[in-house]
């Protein structure tokens, strides 16, 4: 019954989104506002309908309805309730519904805005977003139905179908296979939804961009309307990537946070295009330039969002993430191709209309530096995209599979990343149109002088790796320039208004939240850069097989293997849990419990590290295995990860900066509206 309700809700959503797209477009073409309004109501209906469908799946998942194929494949009796709920996005069918649900919520919210000055864009926005929604819902209705039931056919085969096949009888297994053990982690609550939110939110600026092109609007209105949506998309995508790194660090048991896995890169690609877009739209807003380029970037971001979903959902690439494989790949491929080509054709058709309103006057102006920033982001994007698709092309052409692994990406992206750091230090000191190398030099010399201490101190401290020296120096320059900018601004307010420093900083950020939020984001990036360089260049590791009481040394650390216990748990695991003591410089500093969990239902093992986490470093121990003969001798792999925690702290600072830029802007906008109303009435 509940499964039927859920499935009908999906069918009605599919029809409503198709109707919404058609009615809105018809209303716009025939100048019939009633049809546009009808299309908007259809769009508003999709949110509640998909809520019903999602609620139906969650109910089925949490109540053990194993006669539903999806429920049997991603849950089991032993799983805790919170994981059963997260199983909504733990498998192919559910995650597509979840994607569609979030998108319906976002597009509905966007359609509820006041459209007074932009009414002409509304129908086309509805059309573009509803076509995207219809595509995703169609995948669940026709190919990956989360409500399909299990049946036993007359010849004894297990089949999956929504309606009872002839001669088949219902199959109701007493238990399910359970969620992939790698996904049974609290990180599962936040990581995929954050990524999905980032993905779907980019549909909003894309929808407005297409509406602007269709209605021949050459101004920056679409950018101003979607500024906050773009930031929201960006912060969620950023959070999704950072949380994914943390999840990998905690669960995958290889001592790192980023493995250049194709599906990780698939999530990074729209982030790269989106970050370039975030910077270049400012140039259009301020100077009326880069109109073509901004359109290209948002089209690219949307295409890469679809491409990222395609890679992780279609199973086209085998990786730790590609747990779901299905026949939806060709459908995705066609949809990505068609939307990309149609969008580009529209842009080419409107090319003349989008000519810039200003010219670049200085190579050191902010617009020129932002352009260079975009160029570097595009460089990283090309490297990543090419690295991901090349194995497929190679296999297609030569019939031979190859691996494009971390060394390829690190070698190519390292210098580009360094270039971005240097730009991050210089660009905040530039002004629109008028900066020269002299004006930048005047603003830069003081922080640059302090920065010189960094390579000297590192060199004295025996840090001689040139990549580390260059990276830390560039990151330190960003930090000092940014802090210097805060200091200069706050001191200016202090002198003019007599405000104390915290108040001056607060008011200064409040007056220009976008700039100072951006600076805080830059500080977050600096912390992350410090952490990334620390672990990438200075990570050390060792592996040893030990008997109880034996020890292994790694640098200043000594680890003693104390004990091991092997036991079954109530939630269907067999756990091997070691007890180890950690000594630093001869002094006992911690006791850790690395373990290996074997899940009976899915017949998979997960390695959970024991970690001593400090600001300066992590001591990270993995229980690799138990000797099958003695059952007490064990093999451990130990990592020393310097500064890795700065990545997570930097991620927090990064998020704080975005919140300042988004939410303070919002407050300021409200205040601005009030003053606008009063200003106009006075005039």
């Amino acid at each position, binding site marked *: 019954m509940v499964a039927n309700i859920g499935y009908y809700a999906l069918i009605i959503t599919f029809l409503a989104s198709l109707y919404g797209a058609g009615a809105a477009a018809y209303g716009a073409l025939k100048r019939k506002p009633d049809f546009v309004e009808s299309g908007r109501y259809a769009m508003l209906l999709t949110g509640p309908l998909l809520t019903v469908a999602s609620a139906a799946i969650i109910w089925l998942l949490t109540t053990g309805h194993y006669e539903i194929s999806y429920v049997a494949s991603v849950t089991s009796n032993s799983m805790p309730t919170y994981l059963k709920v997260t199983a909504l996005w733990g498998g192919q069918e559910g995650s597509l519904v979840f994607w569609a649900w979030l998108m319906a919520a976002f597009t509905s919210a966007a359609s509820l805005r006041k459209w007074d000055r932009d009414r002409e864009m509304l129908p086309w926005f509805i059309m573009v977003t509803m076509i995207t929604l219809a595509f995703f819902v169609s995948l669940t209705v026709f190919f990956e139905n989360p409500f399909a039931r299990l049946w036993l056919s007359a010849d004894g085969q297990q089949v999956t179908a929504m309606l009872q096949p002839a001669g088949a009888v219902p199959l109701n297994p007493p238990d399910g296979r359970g969620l992939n053990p790698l996904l049974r982690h609290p990180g599962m609550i936040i990581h995929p939804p954050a990524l999905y939110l980032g993905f779907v939110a980019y549909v909003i600026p894309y929808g407005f961009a297409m509406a602007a092109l269709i209605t021949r609007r050459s101004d920056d*209105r679409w950018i*101003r309307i979607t500024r906050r949506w773009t930031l929201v998309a960006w912060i969620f995508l950023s959070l999704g990537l950072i949380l994914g790194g943390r999840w990998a660090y905690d669960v995958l*048991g*290889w001592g790192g946070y980023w493995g250049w*896995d194709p599906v990780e890169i698939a999530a990074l690609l729209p982030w790269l295009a989106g970050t370039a877009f975030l910077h270049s739209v400012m140039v259009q807003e*301020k100077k*009326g330039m880069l109109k073509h380029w901004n359109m290209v970037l948002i089209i690219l971001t949307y295409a890469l969002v679809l491409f990222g979903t395609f890679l992780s959902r279609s199973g086209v690439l*085998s*990786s*730790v993430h590609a747990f779901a494989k299905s026949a939806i790949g060709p459908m995705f491929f066609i949809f990505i191709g068609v939307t990309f080509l149609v969008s580009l054709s529209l842009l080419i058709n409107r090319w003349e209309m989008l000519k810039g*309103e*200003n*010219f*670049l*006057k200085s*190579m050191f102006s902010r617009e020129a530096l932002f352009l*260079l920033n975009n160029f570097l982001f*595009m*460089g990283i994007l*090309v490297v990543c995209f*090419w*690295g991901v698709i090349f194995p497929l092309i*190679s296999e297609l*052409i*030569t019939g*031979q*599979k*190859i*691996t*494009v*692994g*971390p060394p*390829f990406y690190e070698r190519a992206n390292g210098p580009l990343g360094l270039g971005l750091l240097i730009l991050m230090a210089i660009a905040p000191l530039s002004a629109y149109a008028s900066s020269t190398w002299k004006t930048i030099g005047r603003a830069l010399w003081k922080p640059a002088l*302090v920065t010189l201490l*960094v390579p*000297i*101190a590192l060199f*004295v*401290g*025996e840090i001689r790796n040139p990549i580390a020296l260059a990276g830390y120096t560039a990151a330190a320059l960003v930090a000092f320039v940014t802090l210097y900018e805060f200091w200069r601004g706050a001191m200016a307010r202090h002198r003019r208004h007599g405000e104390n420093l915290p108040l001056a900083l607060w008011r200064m950020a409040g007056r220009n939240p976008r700039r100072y939020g951006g600076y805080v984001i830059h500080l977050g990036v600096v912390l992350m850069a410090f952490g990334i360089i*620390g672990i990438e260049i200075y990570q*050390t*590791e060792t*592996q*040893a097989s030990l008997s109880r009481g034996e020890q292994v040394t*790694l*640098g200043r650390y000594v680890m003693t293997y104390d004990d091991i216990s092997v036991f079954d748990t109530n939630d269907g695991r067999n756990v091997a849990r070691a007890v180890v003591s950690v000594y630093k410089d001869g002094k006992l500093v911690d006791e850790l419990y690395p373990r290996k969990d074997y899940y009976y239902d899915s017949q998979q*093992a997960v390695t959970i590290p024991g970690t001593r986490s400090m600001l*300066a*470093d992590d001591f990270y121990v993995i229980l*690799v*295995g138990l000797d099958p003969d003695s059952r007490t001798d064990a093999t451990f*792999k130990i990592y020393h990860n310097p*500064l890795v925690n700065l990545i997570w702290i930097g991620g927090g600072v990064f998020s704080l900066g975005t919140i300042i830029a988004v939410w303070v802007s919002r407050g300021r906008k409200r205040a*601005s*509206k009030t003053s*606008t109303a009063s*200003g*106009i009435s006075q*005039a």
Partner: protein
Amino acid sequence: MRKLQAVMGIALGLILFSQALALPAFAQDGGPTDDDVNVIARELYCPVCENIPLDVCPTQACEQWRATIREKLVLGWSDEQIKDYFVDQYGPRVLAEPPAEGFNALVYILPPVLFAIGAYFLFRAVRPWRVEPPTPKDVSKESDDPYIAQLEKELRQRDE
């Protein structure tokens, strides 16, 4: 004096920070250790566990591969000989990167070529902007009519 103290503080902090990074490498005596095996395993990928380096892959198959590496090390094979052995057995996909030969050389050639083309177009796009005079239309320029100017200004503020 205070500035000097601040600078000294920063320098001291940086030296302490650099100490956090500096750890001497761990060495073991005797035959091939797990670490010796992992040095080679880190650069290999088994065909089954795609995208997981051999040194951290927990599967039985990868454990056997690591045992093979150990055997070869005992026999005195060099790192390159061992990697070549796996390439001969399973193809170039076991390497972290394809050899830069034949069709696969494209993976290394295309990004720098595209980067150079991009740089050229960037230069071409930027150059006319520098030499051409600015157009009279400037978005930041305000109207002569004070009412229109005020209206435009407030509309822009409202959008921000």
